[in-house]
């Protein structure tokens, strides 16, 4: 196979991944790594480097839209990004010393969780527990737009949220994913943010977390331009297309199907990791 053919195939795969990822919210990195390693036989280190790039690309594009609509909480994002960035640096540093098969197994496990979390979209019922001392001191309380005007909310559980965000960042640096699922979990359940605020703020933060790890991977030589080019462009084009279609799509069914596929990919990754094939 020559370079042009390979680029076209990878680009097409990335396009599909970006399209489905934006429709189901299951993100880029989570799909790109299995796609490259299982379908194209790419070494997982190349795959993770490229996946981080695609995560930055898609999340920055999406975040632009969410911020404009007034849902994301910039202060929460900025404060928690301290935790995610440190986590990402630690994760990237640890990844250097981990065996590739261990990373593959870890990836498979996270993949299963992501798929499961995606189906079980069970937002924590928003009950206002009143102001929290730390959150008030950090001026995190805010509002979000609803059909009836701006709805205010309080933020709670800052230390726990901070700790969880460190974990999310570490996973991102370790596996090349955006860790959106963990971020949303932290903000929704631990910090009691309204669900839509959690998801949009998470999207807002993902790019920064991935950028922290991506810089390290690039300087380590894990990011190959011949591979990154079709993946980045394909994923971008795919997610742009997906955003257009989102309004009319049957997201529920898609998400279910996609989660099942991801589940199988996860099992295969774990299996390959265990048998030393990856």
């Amino acid at each position: 196979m020559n370079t042009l053919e390979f680029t076209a195939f990878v680009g097409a795969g990335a396009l599909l991944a970006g399209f489905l990822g934006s429709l189901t919210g299951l993100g880029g990195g989570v799909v790109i790594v299995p796609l490259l390693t299982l379908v194209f036989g790419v070494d997982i280190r190349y795959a993770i480097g490229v996946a981080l790039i695609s995560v930055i690309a898609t999340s920055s594009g999406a975040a632009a839209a969410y911020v404009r609509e007034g849902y994301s909480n910039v202060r929460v994002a900025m404060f928690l990004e301290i935790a995610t960035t440190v986590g990402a640096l630690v994760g990237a540093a640890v990844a250097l010393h981990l065996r590739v098969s261990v990373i593959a197994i870890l990836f498979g496990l996270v993949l299963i969780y992501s798929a499961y979390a995606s189906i079980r979209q069970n937002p924590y019922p928003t009950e206002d527990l009143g102001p929290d001392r730390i959150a008030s001191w950090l001026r995190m309380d805010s509002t979000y737009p609803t059909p009836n005007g701006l709805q205010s909310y309080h933020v709670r559980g800052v230390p726990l949220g901070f700790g969880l965000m460190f974990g999310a960042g570490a996973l991102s640096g370790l596996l090349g994913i955006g860790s959106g699922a963990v971020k949303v979990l932290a903000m929704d359940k631990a910090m009691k943010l309204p669900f839509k605020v959690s998801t949009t703020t998470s999207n807002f933060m993902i790019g920064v977390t991935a950028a922290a790890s991506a810089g390290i991977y690039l300087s380590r030589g894990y990011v190959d331009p011949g591979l990154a080019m079709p993946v980045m462009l394909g994923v971008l084009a795919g997610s742009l297309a997906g955003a257009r279609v989102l309004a009319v799509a049957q997201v529920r069914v898609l998400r279910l199907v996609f989660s099942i596929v991801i589940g199988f990919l996860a099992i295969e990754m774990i299996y390959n990791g265990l048998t030393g094939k990856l």
Partner: protein
Amino acid sequence: MGSALQQSDQRIDEILGRLLRTGVALAALVVFVGGAVYLNRHYLPVTNYHVFQGEPPELRTISGILRESLAFRGRGLIQLGLLILIATPVARVAFSVFAFLYQGDRKYVLFTLVVLGLLVFSLLGGCG
């Protein structure tokens, strides 16, 4: 939170959004151009990605990437586009420093500077 703060938050959010979009678009353009140059030699057999070798040093450092780009080499240009992409969220954080300064929010100027510092540290290669 007063409504004046909310309004300036809103304005800042809009600029942030545009900054992100511009960064991604510029990065994509550079990667595309680099890709075109790279694919010009499309008859070559594809790199064996199954075996991990790591990239040559000139594609791993900022100075090396700039040199390769100025020489109009496809792979160097692609790496340059990727650098621009990685720099986009970093630029967003840098902008937030000014936004918080403008709002007189000293706590968040500090928090944002910490994040910015960590990001720059990683871009310079971290400690790996």
